[in-house]
């Protein structure tokens, strides 16, 4: 094996791949070969670094230099300057927005400083398509240790003591779940990994699978040993082709090394993993729906009990955990339950991955200890709100969650505090909104999602959510009444109480949470027929202020429907009957002459 002096890590996450990270790698390889350095510098495609806002990311080791927004054209300069002469390319380094200084080592960047990476420990560090790199990072050491030193009961005890709770949404204690499944005797049991990441705006599971697939395989095998299962199934979204490819490679490599299959490490324990594909249904994130979908049926939920731990896939005891939960397991075995339990808050241990997105400066994937405050996440790691706007709310828990507002900024984030605040952890999507976002429209947006994703099995969810959506639509059109506001709340509570599965029980949360925190916005829509954020099209008009307009014609030229008329150098006028309120004119006006009334 060649000994390399330097390594160039190029992000191969979905965001960076969309910005040409493939051609960056090709370019590096050809430049290095041309300079005769291909035996000294290794180029590696890694998983997601997390800092998607500044992608594509290129990292150079051993000096840990972090280049941002690299283009294929920049590669020749990095090779000639940094790799040959040892001089860093300053213009591609991250610039700290506060001090305006170049930061070359990612450890000193605000985005990474507060993070502790457990589930994401290998993402952006190893080549996910090479099992040797995972093994070099103590990979498959945990399963070895478990098989050799611990009984299943002892292993379950470690997971229980660590305090690990399910990262998929509900936060059920993982060790307890394993224990229940282990106690149900059957000729065949199953370990299922839920990789049907359906919360729009959350992409942590995908990043783990793309960046560190072996950690999930290893954890599933450990789980199989604990509960007495020899078969594992990963239920993954068909919309994640890259993750599927990397999983297939990883499974093949693990089989080749004898880490999956018969008699693993000579212990007599058999375990193998296959893939099942989802086909786009949010409700399949619910355990019982997921299991039906795995059986080739419509993904409709069924009543619990019986729980999957008693009767799951093909009627056999089944343990379902999500990707992030599994990814945390091997480290817990290696570093011990006490170590994991020392991180986090009293009832929520360890770390949580959040997908930070929306109106925030540093969009990306972050992993922080439980108990980190929203303020730290948004203003320190996230770098604050885009374009200097004011923070309004952060939605956690996706379509099942609620919004956190300014008054929650200093609340430590954990499972229980989020529920107390009227939201929930969910899978970890965190969408940040600013003063320009209309909270009634946000609630409508989420309802639109749940109406489409409701499986239709039970009436409260199928019919009730549709009615909620219609009321919200009337409110945003300026046709809402006070009675309807009351009905909105009552119906929400009924749906929560009477729906069969998690989807319906949580679907009114965005409505209730925005009503609790932003009731004045609802009132403005209903009573004043105004949208305070200027988002609801039916409630606004675009107007040109004649005093401010200089008649530059920029707006008229850019209006897609020719609604703006006027002579050069004279104030223009918008014909509100033609105007489609697309906002193109406001963006083009350099004189701030157009406003929304």
């Amino acid at each position, binding site marked *: 094996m060649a000994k390399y002096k330097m390594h160039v890590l190029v992000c191969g996450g*979905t965001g960076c791949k969309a910005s040409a990270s493939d051609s960056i790698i090709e370019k590096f390889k050809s430049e290095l070969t041309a300079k005769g350095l291909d035996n000294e510098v290794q180029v590696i495609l890694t998983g997601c670094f997390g800092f998607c806002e500044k992608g594509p990311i290129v990292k150079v080791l051993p000096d840990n230099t972090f280049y941002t927004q690299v283009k294929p054209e920049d590669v020749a300069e990095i090779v000639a300057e940094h790799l040959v002469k040892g001089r860093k390319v300053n213009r591609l380094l991250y610039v700290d927005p506060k001090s305006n200084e170049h930061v070359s080592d990612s450890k000193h960047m605000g985005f990474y400083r507060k993070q502790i990476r457990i589930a994401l420990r290998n993402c952006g560090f190893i080549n996910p398509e090479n099992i040797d790199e995972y093994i070099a990072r103590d990979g498959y050491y945990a399963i070895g240790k478990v098989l050799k030193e611990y009984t299943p009961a002892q292993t379950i005890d470690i997971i229980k003591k660590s305090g690990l709770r399910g990262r998929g949404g509900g936060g059920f204690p993982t060790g307890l779940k394993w224990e229940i499944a282990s106690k149900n005797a059957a000729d065949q049991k199953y370990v299922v990994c839920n990789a049907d990441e359906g919360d729009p*705006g959350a992409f942590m599971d995908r990043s783990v699978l793309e960046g560190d697939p072996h950690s999930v395989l290893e954890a599933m095998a450990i789980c199989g040993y604990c509960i007495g299962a020899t078969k594992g199934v990963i239920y993954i979204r068909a919309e994640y082709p890259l993750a599927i490819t990397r999983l297939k490679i990883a499974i093949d490599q693990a089989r080749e090394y004898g880490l999956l299959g018969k008699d693993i490490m000579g212990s007599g324990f058999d375990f193998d993993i296959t893939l099942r594909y989802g086909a786009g249904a949010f409700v399949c994130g619910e355990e019982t729906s997921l299991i039906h979908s795995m059986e*080739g049926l419509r993904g409709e939920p069924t009543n619990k009990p019986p729980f999957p731990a008693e009767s799951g896939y093909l009627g056999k005891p089944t343990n379902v955990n999500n990707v992030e939960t599994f990814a945390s397991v091997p480290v817990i075995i290696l570093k011990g339950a006490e170590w994991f339990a020392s991180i986090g808050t009293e009832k929520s241990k360890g770390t949580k991955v959040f997908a930070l997105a929306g109106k925030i400066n540093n969009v990306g994937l972050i992993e922080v200890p439980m108990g980190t405050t929203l303020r730290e996440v948004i203003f320190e790691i996230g770098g604050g709100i885009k374009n200097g706007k004011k923070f309004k709310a952060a939605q956690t828990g996706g379509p099942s969650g609620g919004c956190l507002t300014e008054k929650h900024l200093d609340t430590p984030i954990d499972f229980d505090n989020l529920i107390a605040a009227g939201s929930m952890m969910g899978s970890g999507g965190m969408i940040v909104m600013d003063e320009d976002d209309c909270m009634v429209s946000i609630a409508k947006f*989420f309802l639109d999602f749940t109406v489409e994703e409701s499986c239709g099995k039970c009436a409260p969810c199928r019919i009730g959510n549709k009615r909620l959506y219609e009321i919200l639509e009337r409110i945003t059109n300026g046709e809402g009444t006070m009675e309807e506001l009351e009905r909105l709340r009552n119906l929400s509570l009924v749906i929560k109480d009477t729906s069969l599965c998690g989807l319906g029980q949580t679907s009114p949360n965005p409505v209730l949470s925005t009503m609790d925190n932003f009731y004045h916005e609802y009132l403005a829509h209903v009573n004043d027929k105004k949208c305070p954020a200027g988002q609801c099209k039916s409630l606004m008009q675009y107007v040109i202020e004649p005093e401010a307009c200089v008649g530059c014609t920029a707006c008229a030229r850019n209006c897609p429907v020719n609604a703006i008329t006027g002579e050069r150098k004279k104030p223009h006028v918008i014909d509100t009957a033609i105007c*489609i309120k697309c906002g193109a004119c406001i963006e083009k006006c350099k004189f701030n002459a157009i406003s929304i009334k």
Partner: protein
Amino acid sequence: MSHIKVELKKEQVAKIKDICKSFNNEAGELINVLHKTQESFGYLPAEVQEVIARELNVSVAKVYGVVTFYSFFTMIPKGKHPISICTGTACYVRGAEKVLDEFKRILDVKVGETTPDGKFSLSCLRCVGACGLAPVVMVGEKVYGRVSPDGVKDIIKEYEQ
């Protein structure tokens, strides 16, 4: 559009049967069979579903139920250049709706429809996981990031020849 009669050629029927066979004609493999079939046909018209139902020995209603349940399966042929606008939450708050409106206006189709010349079809999808680039539009496999309503006509122009 789903009422258009499709006449399957002999080879096509054989191909579907092969796919079913590769999954041992097991009813539990229905979703995998549909994935493979859609991969090779581009869509799943009623006639294709009938063949699958026969092969797996389940009712056509069951196959239809599964096809219509999951958003990944479609009974309408996609355009030559399928356009998907991400309407995940991150893209939504960064203006995906305005981008979608512009596509609808220029192509003069609704979501889920294909232009009469069969060139473009328009659909929405939920989160491709590239939220750093929001709002995101996909044309075929290619991802366009930070799309503004202004930029829509340029994207369409790229594929118009």
